[in-house]
């Protein structure tokens, strides 16, 4: 069984597990969006990125698809990861501000504004509908069409499907359709009314979950006040 170190915790993970599986088992929270337990991992939203490796050669990979391997070192909430998550959430907000799921993510991860022009789209191409149709319902009535900026999810030739059994699985699982947020008021695209929680702790300066509330505090990710000065 591969031995990994995740946020300073040494763990022997069963073969075939992903970093996300290991994190969930240990109670470490990693945000996800296009991931669903009952469906195959897609790795498209990139929200679950974590930093792996040590020293100068670290990189960000998606926890939902990266398999555990012997000697893997993972840190789930470094500065680099937190910045990436915030910008990705800004992109999601700009895509589809009417999705409550996205608004909740924004509130939870401290995204108070998006600097990008909102598109007010109905779809974020997470692919959950495609996967539930293929893997759970064994129908394959819908799929990805075109590519890049013209990407769409639809039926062949945009025609009414002969194989769709009207099960409603796609509507059920869609994060944009699930719960619509009516909150955002232009020009702000951020709502933040339903959910307010503390931001996650950045562990770049706080090794292994021990918080050094001492003289350092230079990071500023979770504390916003001036650090107490030495001697008073």
């Amino acid at each position, binding site marked *: 069984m591969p031995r990994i170190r995740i946020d300073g915790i040494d763990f022997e993970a069963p073969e075939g597990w992903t970093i996300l599986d290991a994190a969930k088992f240990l109670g470490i929270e990693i945000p996800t969006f296009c991931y669903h337990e009952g469906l195959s991992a897609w790795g*498209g939203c990139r929200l679950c990125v974590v930093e792996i490796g040590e020293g100068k050669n670290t990189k960000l990979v998606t926890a939902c698809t990266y398999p555990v391997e012997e000697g893997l070192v993972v840190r789930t909430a470094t500065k680099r990861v937190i910045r990436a998550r915030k*910008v990705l959430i800004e992109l999601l907000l700009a895509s589809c501000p009417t999705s409550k799921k996205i608004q909740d993510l924004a509130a939870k991860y401290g995204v108070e504004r998006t*600097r990008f*022009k909102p598109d007010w789209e109905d779809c974020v*191409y997470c692919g959950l509908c495609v996967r539930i149709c293929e893997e759970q319902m064994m129908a394959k009535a819908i799929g990805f069409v075109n590519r*890049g*900026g013209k990407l769409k999810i639809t039926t062949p030739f945009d025609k009414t499907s002969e194989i769709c059994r009207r099960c409603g699985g796609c509507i059920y699982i869609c994060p944009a359709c699930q719960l619509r947020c009516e909150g955002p008021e232009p020009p702000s695209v951020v709502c933040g009314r339903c959910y307010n929680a503390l931001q996650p702790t950045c562990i770049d300066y706080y090794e292994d979950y021990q918080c050094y509330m001492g003289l350092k505090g230079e990071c500023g990710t979770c504390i916003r006040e001036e650090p107490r000065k030495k001697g008073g």
Partner: protein
Amino acid sequence: MNRIESSKELEALVSKLRAESKDRFISISSGTCGRARGSTKVVEAFKEAAKGKIDIKVTGCHGFCQAEPNVIIFPEGIFYQHLKPEDAKEIVEKTVLKGEIIDRLLYKDEVTGERYVYQKDIPFYKKQMRILLGDNPFIDPTRIEDYLARGGYLSLAKALKMSPEEIIETIKASGLRGRGGAGFPTGRKWELARKQKSDIKYIICNADEGDPGAYMDRSLLEGNPHSVIEGMIIGAYAIGANEGWIYVRNEYPLAVEHVTIAIEQAREAGLLGENILGSGFSFDIKIARGAGAFVCGEETALMLSIEGKRGTPRQRPPYPVEKGLFGKPTVINNVETWANVPKIIDKGAEWFSKIGTKTSKGTKIFALVGKVRNTGLIEVPMGITLREIIFDIGGGIPGGKKFKAVQTGGPSGGCIPSELLDLPVDYESLTQAGSIMGSGGMIVMDESTCMVDVAKYFLTFLQDESCGKCLPCRKGIQKMLEIITDITEGKGKEEDLETLEELANVVKDTSLCGLGQTAPNPVLSTLRYFRDEYLAHIRDKKCPAGVCKALIKYTIDPDKCTGCSACKKVCPQEAIVGEAKQPHSIIQDKCIKCGMCYDVCKYDAVVIT
């Protein structure tokens, strides 16, 4: 061509063909670009004029695209350029039969005015080291005999007598790194693949050369397909694969044609198929065609494309050497990488490792294009400086303009400014400068190129080519493009640069595949070296290079205008007014800045400000 049953037979055949090959012949460069310049008619004219007098060889690119249609007369090596069909007769009668040189057809250096008779003396060729491309003028790609007469497939015979491990050690010792752009050590890749236990293994030749501005692989496949095939057979033997694929992009029909012919001829000769040269090793190659998707140059997307699916890359691990095509261990290498293999086996790892720098061995083929005098394909040793390439080989910038930047690595690369012209060309230096080696595209830009427009161009390209799977690439590129477009239209704000940089860095960090991860490079490198230009667009609402339409104006200088009305006739918007022989003027409200008037004016009277 009869089936060659053993390496002894091969050696005998090669000796025979060498002895029979004629020293005297006219080699006509006729790759796709030569044909775009009319070489087909020139070939016809030569075939007619040379009948019974001298042999004609229709070959692939000679590399000096600027000079095409061109011929080289062997054995002397006389180089004639810019040929028209009418010149054929004269060349045969004067040069071939009488030994007279026709001055007007010689290459002339634009700056010094000097004319050069022999190919080897021409400045464009002088500093090159044409290990791979040098064979092109001697080989008709539709005749395997030509390749054999140059010693072709002897490396294969030598390799089949070595053990696979010995071959891998040789490639490792040579220091060969992947020429597709990432520069992964080839020997190590082969070693990893060899170690995999599997009944089936594959090798693939990545000929999906999608970088705009790069056509090295096209030239190799069109002009010398057997060099690639030979490399692949050796590689397959080394890792234990019996099936191979060459994935050629759809936009290269001539390359597909020549590779198809080459494979058939190699099969006939028994160099592909069962029991090659009596060694017991069997291997064959299939051709897969791309269908217009840049992202299919990425290895996982390429393999999905061969499997008949959408080319959406997947995460690695598992790497292709562990689980690749159809789930089996696969070695993918670029065309140029494969072409290097027979040379290394022939001349040895030490010979190869003596060329280049400490970390980047061997030569690299570059496509030198853009605002430079001598455009074409060049092959140079690693470590040569950009200055030598652009000025010594390329002949500098034409039209009295100043060098501004050179773009390397295609849409994954960056722009390198004049301060860094003395940078040695190797994998590490280019990466440190904010660009990458890439597949070999090298586009020279002068003061009339707007760097913000260049960044916008690449983002537009990548947005079209992105597979769309992951958020940062699909949306991130779109948003970067929106911000840059605003800047080019004079709607940019100062905070935009910070936003652009942060977004670019996140796209780089979080994208799933190489396309997204390197997409921000053009933006980041232009922001790094040409920030002033961005600020001019934002603060002054000006485009210093005179490119961004919303920020420029076309006007007619009344002192230079002769009133010839050439501009008035071509203006699609009827925006030019003026009486005959009187200075004309442009109605700004109607002008759409199409530039047609600027093109036709012979008096430089149309001014862009």
